[in-house]
């Protein structure tokens, strides 16, 4: 008979962000039902943003006194708090960059915001989870929300297909994950990460099977982070999904999934690191190569960014391969920097794609610098950050990742990864070339002023990118302190 039948206050405090977001989501749904006029509905976005900011504050406050909650279902340590704050921040920018799009597509319903909020709840659960079961549920919340978001414009065939592919393959991969969980449970008799670790350390269970279980779980997670060879779904899904959603998917669930990956493999499967490090090594390299090289030939910018996001997952995997606190810190920083950069890039794409996303070919950006110098400049900042040019967050991300890799004596992986960044420069530059070196085509004639929300989103992400590039220490110190040992 467990003593803590009723959770204490501090435990509620530790999941305060999730609670805020859930309530906010429910409220939005209610308002959706009540508010009928357009300008009443204008409240959704600000409200959700407010809720998210509140949650952000709460999560930062919660980071104040770390510890477990709800009989070790959750653990609020630095790592968790970092990622929780990150995904919430991602949510803010995602919502800001969506409003304009929804208005344009005549489907600005409250559900959208509710979905975003709930999926963030899911991601918060993921990153704070200390139990495979919590991880699983959080993952599912986030995923199901993502499936729906990917197909949000249900009259658009591209959305449907994107949603269907994401959904089928996603649940397919989840099944593998679950099977792995089942095996781990069977072999160690627990689903709590720490207990699993200790069980594996005593190494009573047959390690081969533990390895197999780890492998199955890796499949499930690698799918979520779109690591090769499980990346196949990403380009199609990102291309088909609404632009802002694609931006959100490429960072939010991905960051959360990476958080899980790091936590599970560094905590629970730490003892059998020798078994899984090689495969992560291979996956990292394969992912970088597949992402960068396939991106070379893309003409659709969303698809190109999708491949690029695959490549970046590869870089983070390099940090994971390092399997050290430095590595995990590097991964955390990288994900943060990448989040700002990519959200910004997708926000600009959202802005330029216009109704029905007619203009998503790279050539449609021709001469943007003449028509919209500000937007062009911002997008180039994001692209330079994706390339990894100094004074942008992307650069320091790469720097820390490869530093960690060299710490772990992964010389070959580092060299190949660095060369990959050079390759990557090519396709990002192509976009800059089109924006600056080409004469503007008539496709830019119909370009109207970006909405206020989108502007904020773009400028905030640009600011974040640059701040992370010029004063990386602020974030990195937090990450270093929060890193998993």
């Amino acid at each position: 008979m467990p003593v803590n039948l009723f959770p204490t206050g501090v435990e509620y405090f530790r999941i305060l962000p999730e609670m805020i977001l859930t309530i906010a989501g429910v409220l939005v749904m209610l308002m959706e039902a009540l508010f009928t006029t357009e300008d009443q509905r204008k409240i959704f976005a600000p409200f959700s943003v407010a809720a998210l900011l509140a949650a952000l504050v709460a999560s930062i406050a919660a980071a104040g006194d770390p510890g477990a909650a709800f009989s070790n279902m959750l653990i609020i340590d630095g790592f968790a708090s970092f990622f929780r704050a990150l995904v919430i921040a991602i949510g803010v920018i995602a919502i800001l960059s969506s409003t304009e799009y929804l208005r344009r597509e005549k489907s600005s319903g409250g559900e959208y915001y509710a979905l975003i909020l709930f999926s963030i709840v899911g991601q918060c659960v993921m990153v704070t989870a200390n139990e495979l079961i919590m991880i699983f549920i959080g993952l599912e919340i986030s995923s199901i929300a993502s499936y729906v978001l990917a197909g949000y414009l249900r009259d658009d065939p591209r959305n449907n297909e994107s949603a269907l592919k994401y959904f089928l393959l996603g649940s397919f991969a989840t099944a593998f994950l679950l099977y792995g969980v089942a095996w781990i449970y069977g072999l160690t008799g627990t689903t709590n990460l720490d207990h699993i670790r200790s069980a594996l350390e005593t190494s009573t269970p047959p390690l081969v099977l533990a390895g197999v279980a780890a492998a199955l779980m890796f499949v499930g997670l690698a799918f979520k982070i779109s690591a090769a060879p499980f990346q196949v779904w990403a380009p199609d899904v990102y291309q088909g999904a609404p632009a802002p959603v694609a931006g959100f998917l490429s960072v939010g669930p991905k960051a959360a999934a990476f958080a899980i990956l790091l936590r599970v493999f560094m905590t629970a499967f730490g003892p059998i690191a020798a078994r899984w490090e090689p495969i992560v090594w291979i996956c990292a390299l394969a992912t970088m190569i597949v992402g960068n090289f396939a991106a070379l030939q893309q003409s659709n910018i969303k698809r190109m960014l999708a491949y690029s996001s695959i490549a970046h997952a590869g870089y983070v995997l390099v940090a994971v391969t390092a399997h050290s606190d430095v590595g995990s810190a590097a991964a955390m920083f990288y994900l943060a920097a990448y989040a700002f950069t990519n959200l910004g890039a997708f926000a600009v794409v959202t802005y330029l794609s216009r109704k029905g996303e007619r203009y998503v070919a790279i050539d449609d950006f021709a001469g943007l610098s003449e028509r919209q110098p500000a937007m062009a400049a911002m997008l180039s900042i994001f692209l330079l950050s994706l390339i990894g040019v100094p004074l942008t967050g992307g650069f320091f991300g790469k720097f820390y990742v490869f530093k960690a890799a060299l710490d772990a004596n992964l010389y070959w992986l580092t060299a190949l990864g660095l060369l990959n960044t050079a390759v990557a420069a090519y396709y990002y530059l192509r976009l800059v070339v089109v924006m600056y070196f080409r004469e503007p085509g008539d496709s830019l004639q119909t370009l109207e002023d970006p909405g206020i929300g989108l502007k904020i989103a773009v400028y905030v992400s640009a600011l974040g990118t640059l701040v992370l590039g010029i004063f990386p220490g602020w974030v990195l110190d937090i990450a270093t302190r929060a890193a998993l040992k």
Partner: protein
Amino acid sequence: MTLLDAVLFLPLIGFLLLLAIPKGSPGQSRMAALAISLLIFVVSLGLAVSFRGGTPDGYQFVHDSQWISSPPIRYHIGLDGLSLWLVILTTLLTPISVLASWKHIDHRVKEFYAFLILLEFGLIGVFVSLDLFLFYVFWEVSLVPMYFLIGVWGHERRIYAAVKFFLYTMAGSVLMLGAVIYLYNRAGTFDYAEILGQLQSSRLALGSQAEMLLFLAFFIAFAIKVPLFPLHTWLPDAHVEAPTAGSIMLASVMLKMGTYGLVRFCLPLFPNAAHKSAPWVIALAVIGILYGALVALVQPNMKKLVAYSSVSHLGFVVLGVFSFTQQGLDGAVYQMLSHGISTGALFLLVGYLYERRHSLEISAFGGVATPAPNLGIVFLIATLASMGLPMLNNFIGEYLVMQGASFGNYTATVFAAIGVILSACYLLWLYQRLFYGKTSESLSHHMPDLSGREWAAILPLLLLMLWMGTYTQTFMPAITAQNTRILDQSQPRVARAKQPAAAPALSEVRSSEARLSQVRATEVTNAR
């Protein structure tokens, strides 16, 4: 907050100011850019005036403060005899580039000058940063504005050229980044001086293989920038497509980033590897000298010709650097500056011709000296300087380089000297085809003589050619003093105690080196 900080950050401020100028007022932006660049130049002269070089490690105007706590990346800048003149070269050539693009940059003027000034920021940063990481940051930062300068304001095939330029350099520099990180992981710091100290006191001992790999990582990045044969193919494209100002900055300053890196990093940090690979490098350098000259000989396009001539001239620099002699190193550094001046002037004048005729083909000209005698004379002087005529700047550098190289490797010197003959061939032939002969009707109408603005831009360079050629003591002492240190640092580590194995004359040189360098240093200090 030293004078150097001011020189470094004034461009950045200027860049922001230029961005602040309202759109569609080209006149304003031109004037502003000119004013800013001139101001920077004047301030930078302050560096030369107050430069002592007396400090034991030769650095002055040092500013060392933390940028990022962990990893400990420091904002550590300083000036020594090596970087002093390179910085001033940069600040001098920026206003000249501004003047050079006065007329023929007519669209997006503001952005053009903004990028130009930003480029200056990056370049100065490269030359003054004493923190490997900071150096890399500036190295990359300087890449971006040049990329835009070529890509937006260049000629027909500008996109290909710009992308090629960017990727080529990028490919080289990522490996350098890897090497930098590795050094950090081993030494626990990015600070150049500290790493050097650890290496010298062998507190940080690199295996010979590791050292060679690190050396290569740095060397390739620099060699691409120099550019050293056979990594040079980006240069002709970049030059031909770049606008005049771009070519000037590219040839005069950016290429020096590479050679500067060789002197500053490759030699002192990895002396064993440097010595081991010296024969190969020298071979490449000499090939580059001859190859560049021969290919320049047959170029139908003025800018391509000058570009290949740069390949040839920079070969001399590399030759001097890897001769590991005082003369060679001094000559190399002096040649960097000279090449900056004379090739800058050549590109400027080619730009003048282009503005008049809107063609870069040599065949489009002929007999220009008749309608535009002053242009002819000025061009002649630049040409002579570039072919290393005594009493003009390049001669000093080339002579010292070959003199130094002859101590170690006389054969290489012989081939290099052949390069000098060839330089006369292609330059004189170029001059003959451009300025001599009968003047065609169509040409004589489009060939006004030099305007006041054009005089203003070219005159400083001409005077410098004469000055640097006739009275080197203005520049040499600082350079020599620093090079002596670098040479001392880059003696093979294992054999620090005994003299390095080399020609007896060379060793005699070495011993006298030390003595003289001290004499020089004291002289310099007393002179102030």
